[in-house]
C-alpha cells in the first residue's frame, strides 16, 4: 500500500467536489429531507401518545441518523467508483501503478469524509429542530459509527464488484443494495417485534446489533457489550468476503477482457 497514491486518488475526488457544488448539495439534501420527515413523524407520535412512549420514540431519529452513516459509507465507495466510470477515467487509473487495495482505500476515505459532513449537518438539525441530541449516546457513538461505516464499506465493495462485472447496467445497485438490508437489520423497530422467521436472519448482520444497542443505550444508558463484539466480528467477516469478491471479480474482468468496456461506455 502506497499512501502517496491513496492521497492522490483522494485529491482527485476532492477536486471533483470543489468543481461541482451540486455534489455537496446532494450530500446534505437527501439526509435533511429524511430527517425532516422522520422528525415530523416523531413529533406527531409524541403528541398523540403517553409521555413515556413519546420519549422512547426519539430513537427513530437516532436510527435515521445512524442508518444514514451506513448508507453514506456505502455510497462513498460505490459512487467514487462510478465517478471514474462516468468520466471514462477508469482505464487511466488501471493503467497507472495503482493497486486495487489503494484504489479501494481511497474510496473508503472519501466515504469517511462524506459521513463526517452528513453526520455534522444531521446532528445539528436534529438538535435544534427536534431537541434530539445524538451525543446522548455518549462514547457508544464511536463504536456505533465505526461498525456501521465498516458494513457500509463492505456493501460499497459488493456494489462496485457487481458494477465491474455487469457494467453500468448494474449502476442502480449502487443505490439499491443498502435498502435490501434495511427491512432485516431492525433499523426502526426492535428485533423482538419482527416476524419470528426473520429474527435469525436479522442477527446475521452487524447493523442489527448496533441498532439494538442504540435503543438500549437510549433507554437505559448502557448496552450489552456482547452486541459490540458480535457486530465487530461479523464486520470483519463481511469486509473479508466483500474484499475477496471485489478482487475476484476484478481478476475475472481482466480474464474476460471486460475492463476495457468502461473506456467506451
Amino acid at each position: 500500500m502506497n499512501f502517496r497514491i491513496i492521497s492522490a486518488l483522494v485529491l482527485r475526488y476532492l477536486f471533483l467536489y470543489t468543481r461541482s457544488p451540486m455534489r455537496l448539495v446532494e450530500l446534505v439534501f437527501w439526509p435533511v429531507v429524511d430527517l425532516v420527515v422522520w422528525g415530523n413523524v416523531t413529533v406527531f407520535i409524541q403528541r398523540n401518545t403517553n409521555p413515556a412512549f413519546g420519549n422512547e420514540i426519539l430513537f427513530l431519529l437516532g436510527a435515521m441518523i445512524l442508518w444514514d452513516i451506513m448508507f453514506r459509507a456505502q455510497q462513498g465507495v460505490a459512487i467514487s467508483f462510478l465517478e471514474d466510470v462516468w468520466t471514462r477515467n477508469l482505464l487511466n487509473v488501471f493503467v497507472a501503478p495503482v493497486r486495487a487495495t489503494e484504489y479501494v482505500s481511497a474510496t473508503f476515505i472519501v466515504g469517511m469524509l462524506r459521513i463526517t459532513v452528513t453526520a455534522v449537518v444531521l446532528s445539528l438539525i436534529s438538535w435544534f429542530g427536534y431537541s434530539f441530541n445524538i451525543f446522548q449516546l455518549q462514547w457508544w457513538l464511536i463504536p456505533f459509527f465505526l461498525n456501521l461505516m465498516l458494513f457500509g464499506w463492505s456493501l460499497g465493495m459488493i456494489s462496485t464488484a457487481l458494477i465491474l462485472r455487469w457494467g453500468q447496467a448494474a449502476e442502480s445497485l449502487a443505490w439499491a443494495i443498502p435498502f435490501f438490508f434495511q427491512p432485516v437489520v431492525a433499523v426502526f423497530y426492535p428485533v423482538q417485534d419482527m416476524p419470528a422467521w426473520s429474527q435469525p436472519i436479522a442477527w446475521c448482520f452487524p447493523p442489527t446489533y448496533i441498532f439494538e444497542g442504540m435503543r438500549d443505550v437510549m433507554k437505559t444508558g448502557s448496552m450489552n457489550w456482547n452486541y459490540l463484539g458480535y457486530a465487530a466480528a461479523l464486520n470483519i467477516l463481511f469486509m473479508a468476503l466483500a474484499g475477496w469478491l471485489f478482487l475476484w471479480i476484478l481478476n475475472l474482468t481482466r480474464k474476460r477482457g471486460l475492463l476495457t468496456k468502461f473506456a467506451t461506455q
Partner: protein
Amino acid sequence: MPAPDDREIILEARDLTREFDGVKALDRFSFQLHRGEVLGLLGANGAGKTTAMNCLLGLTLPTSGDLFAFGLPLHQHRIAILQRANFSSAYTALPGNLLVGQNLLVFAKIYGVRDPKKKIAELMELLEISHLAKRVTGQLSAGESTRVNLVKAFLNDPELLMLDEPTASLDPDIADKVRKVVRKVQRERNIGILYTSHNMRDIEEVCDRVIFLHKGKIVCEGTPTDIVAQSSSTNLEDVFIKIARDGEIIDEPQKDKAP
C-alpha cells in the same frame, strides 16, 4: 537481412493468444520492442491491435503466452512495470469535470513526480498548451485533449510508452505537431514506443519498424520502406488496404517471383 538489434528489449510478447468466445483475437503473437525504438502496430479494425495493447497494459489477461517488460513477467510485476511505463489513447479521457491542471496534478502525484507543478508546466509548454491549465478538461477540443493526454503520458518520464491512435480525429496541422513532439521527446529520452494508428503518414514519420496484423496474426514486419519494397504496392497505405482485404502483402501471381 537486417542486422540484429542489440539494444535492450524492454517489451516482449511470446506466443500471445487471446480468445473471445472461441474466436482468436490474437493468435501466437510474438514481438520484441527495444529501448529507443518506435514500433508501429498496424491492421484493420478487428486485426488484434487493441487486444494486444490491452494485454500489454494488463487490462486483459491473455489466454496463453507470456508477456515481459524490462525483463520482468508482466502479470507478476504489473505495478513496478506500470511505474516505468505510460499510456495515451484517443479513446480514453481524463475526467471532464476537473481543470486540466487538477487532472495532471493528480496523475503526477500517482506517479510520484518530483516537483509536479514544474514538470506539468514544462510539458505543457513543450506541447504548446500552457494556456489550458485552468480550462475545464471536458470543454477542450479533440486536438487540445490529445495533447493534454500526452502530457499525462510523459509525466513520469516513461521508458516505455504505448500510444493508441494518438492522432485520431486531429486536423493535419495538429496531427503533424503531435507527431513531431512525440518523435522529439522519444529521441531525447530514448523511449521505446508501441504505436497504433490508422494514419499511414503517422507510421511513416514516427515508426522505425512496423508489424502488420491480420486476424490476430503477424502478416509482415519490417521498416515501413522495407515493407513497401516487399509488397506489390507502391506505398504503405496500399499495403494496409491489401492486407485488410486479402490478409497478404503480395498479389497471388507475384508470390512465385518473391524471394
